[in-house]
């Protein structure tokens, strides 16, 4: 039997988020939970599935490197419509392009930013389930901070995100200066 991959285990999961962002953010910007018969004035949503705004929120938290633990009461949390492994498979949506690789970058960021004792994991001293739980916690906490950030902006100006460049501008504000290439302290021996 082929060994299980950490990535695959993680990708079957579906992150949680706080219900209080459902109307103000998720439904406001995405098609999340909308029936086809809805008669609401069609304002043209900025994003498609609910996970798209979750990704945006996650990266905001990630680049600010700010986390916010989710509310303890699990009744006040919700999950998205699809587990991570299906995120970004958009080929059938008109005018959109699939972005399956983005999932892998999220995973990379989670590995970089989650304090897991990988040696213990490798020895089997901690379970893989525990390790994946920790990755999910990082993911949810970054996104939770991102949602909080967006809510703040909306409180100041309810139309803030209806400027077409509003989301992009947030990401243009982060540092993107080129990084030095990785140099090991000493070359590893080849034996």
């Amino acid at each position: 039997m082929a060994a299980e991959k950490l990535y695959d285990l993680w990708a079957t999961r579906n992150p949680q988020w706080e219900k209080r962002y459902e109307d103000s953010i998720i439904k406001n910007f995405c098609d999340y939970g909308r029936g086809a018969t809805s008669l609401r004035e069609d304002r043209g949503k900025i994003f498609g599935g609910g996970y798209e705004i979750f990704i945006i929120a996650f990266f905001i938290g990630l680049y600010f490197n700010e986390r916010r633990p989710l509310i303890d009461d699990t009744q006040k949390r919700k999950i998205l419509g699809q587990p991570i492994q299906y995120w970004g498979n958009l080929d059938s949506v008109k005018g959109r392009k699939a972005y399956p690789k983005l999932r892998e970058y999220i995973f990379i960021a989670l590995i970089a930013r989650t304090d897991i004792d990988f040696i213990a994991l490798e020895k089997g001293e901690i379970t893989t389930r525990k390790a994946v739980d920790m990755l999910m916690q990082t993911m949810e906490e970054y996104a939770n901070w991102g949602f909080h950030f967006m809510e703040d902006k909306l409180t100041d100006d309810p139309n803030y995100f209806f400027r077409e460049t509003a989301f992009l501008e947030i990401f243009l504000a982060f540092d993107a200066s080129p990084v030095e290439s990785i140099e090991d302290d000493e070359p590893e021996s080849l034996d």
Partner: protein
Amino acid sequence: MIIKEIKIKNFRSYYGENHLSLSKGLTLIIGDNGDGKTTLFEALEWLFDTTGVNTQTSHISEKRKSELEIGECDEVSVSITFEHDGEKEIEKSFTFEKSFDETVYTRDFMFKGYFIEGAGRNVISGDRLLNMCFEPVIRKYCLFKGENELNVFDNDTALKTLVDTFSGIRQFDELVEMTSNFEQKSANAANRELQNDKKVSNQAKELNTQLNDALNDIKNIKQELEQKRISISEFSLKLELLEKNQETSERYQAIKERIKGLTDKRAKLAGQATCEYSTNLLDKQWILRSFPSIIQEFSKKVSALSKEKRRLDKQETERRAKEAGERETISKIQKLANDAVPLPWNLPDESTMKEMIDDEICKVCGRPAPKGSEAYEFMCNKLNEYLAHITAEANKKSGAAEEDKPLFQNTFINELHSRQIKLSGETEQEISNIATQISDELDFVSKRKSELAEVDKQLQELKTEQNDLLMQSGLSAELLDKSISDLRGFFDAKSRAESRVSVLETTLKFKENAKNEIQEQLSKLEPTSSMTQVYQRVHAAFEKITKAFSNAKEQNINNFLQMLEAEANKYLQKLNKNDFYGIIRIRKTINNSARIELYSDNGSRIENPNGALKTTMYMSVLFAISQITTLKREQDYPLIFDAPTSSFGGFKEDTFYNVIDTIDKQCIIVTKDLLNIDKATGQKTLDYDTINKLSCSVYRIEKVEPFNDKDLSTIQTVVKQIR
């Protein structure tokens, strides 16, 4: 009818209640594009529409609509208070409500009129009151949208409507009809008598049949002739216009070409000037713009883990190798002198070995082995080896599995390591290029956007030029769109019609002669009865009377047009004070419509009066019509114009409003004149220099700022009385 006040509530951009008090003379309502000028005009049009229930939801103020809670309702209403044999009011309204599924529906349409007497009000239906005080035909000459609608004679029935309504020629119509009826009857009676007359009966019958045939033929020929003449006149007019305006036509075509080119360019630019700023974050992975530093963190972490794992692995291997090495050394020590194979480790057994060591004798060979001797040492080693084996056996039994188990059960670090390797090289390069990609694309889009703005500006200028050209030339776009090949078509059609007319004219002459001959023969018949002769004379008399009334009708129309012309010329002179204005002639056309033309004093026609002169010419006719209406109805009526002066220049505007201000007639003009716009800042200010010279009421209408230019529900017009 003099309008005293207009109230508009929740009608399109007129959110909430809005009032305008009007003066008896001129009221100016000034606003820029999109400020609600045309909406005000259309609110009045809606009020004056008597064709039935009209509760279009598009009339509802979007702002009010968006504020409504579910189940809440409000109303759209437009009303005017006016003076017409006492004070009266007309109000049109309907209620709108937001239902549970958030759709807005309308109900309770109301159209009511009121007679106001002191504090009391008597109700009457709105359309009845409107038809009583402001009948449809008068309304037609009172409301004008834009400069191009000012020519009231633009449609073929206009002259007839006007003449019928205001000239009293209607009575002539009845007389003409009545006398021609008598003429017909008397002719029939005279004929009948002739045919019954014994002496001439047969001849009369024969002649009458011939006469009827001839009359039928003549009637058909005349009909065809009239049609052909109308066609010829139309073709001639078009040809004349095109020929005289060849230069205009060429300029128009050139502008059209440029507009087409620019429109194509615009479409292309519009396609390029868009960018999916938000979804590109995901679809084009723009969100990874700042990701390289995270990749670096990941790589460092994974490299360190990988190194640590290998270090631990190596350590473990070394530990195991060491243990194995120790066992090997022991075996080496026990090697026999002559390289013979030693006994198995378990022979002799432990007790035998201990006994031999205690006794210092090798009981296998029977030789003594005193302490310190080589043989004694051999026996001690042999015992130790035995004990080591036993321990090892015991260890083997208890923890053999642990000894074989690898240090690391999982390979997650390897998974991460191969991911790290995959990331390096091209992928990493791709991610670090995202920042450049974004700035390139944003730069591209912004450049296209400014190009687009420039093209829009050029297009706007060209369209203005095109409109000015149309206004100045007096030609329709439709006509100028015709190409040279169409011109040839006009020529051909015209000459075909002309040759047909000449054939018809000859035939008609021939038929007329034949008819006259028959009639003469008929009149020469000498009936025996004197009664028959009387019938013939009566008929002859009616024929003359009919002709007289026909001529009188014609004369009357001409008189009416002359009166209209005279009145119009008085206004034209006033409106063009200190400027050239010419003489208005209203000419009847072959199809009984009329054309307003301008002539110079020396009798030559001014083909293309400039835009402002043309507008004042049409307006003068309107004022004249209104003047005649007032005389006829003994009532005054308002004239309401939406943006009538777009082709005027600043100076002309001043004069125009100064003159209108002094004309004793209620005039409501909605306009963007007298509004100065600072080109640099876009700031709009009223032209108080001109306004202060006027004595009329002035209102400013404008959009409330701030508003969202994409969201109609943020648009609201406010009405401010300036004076």
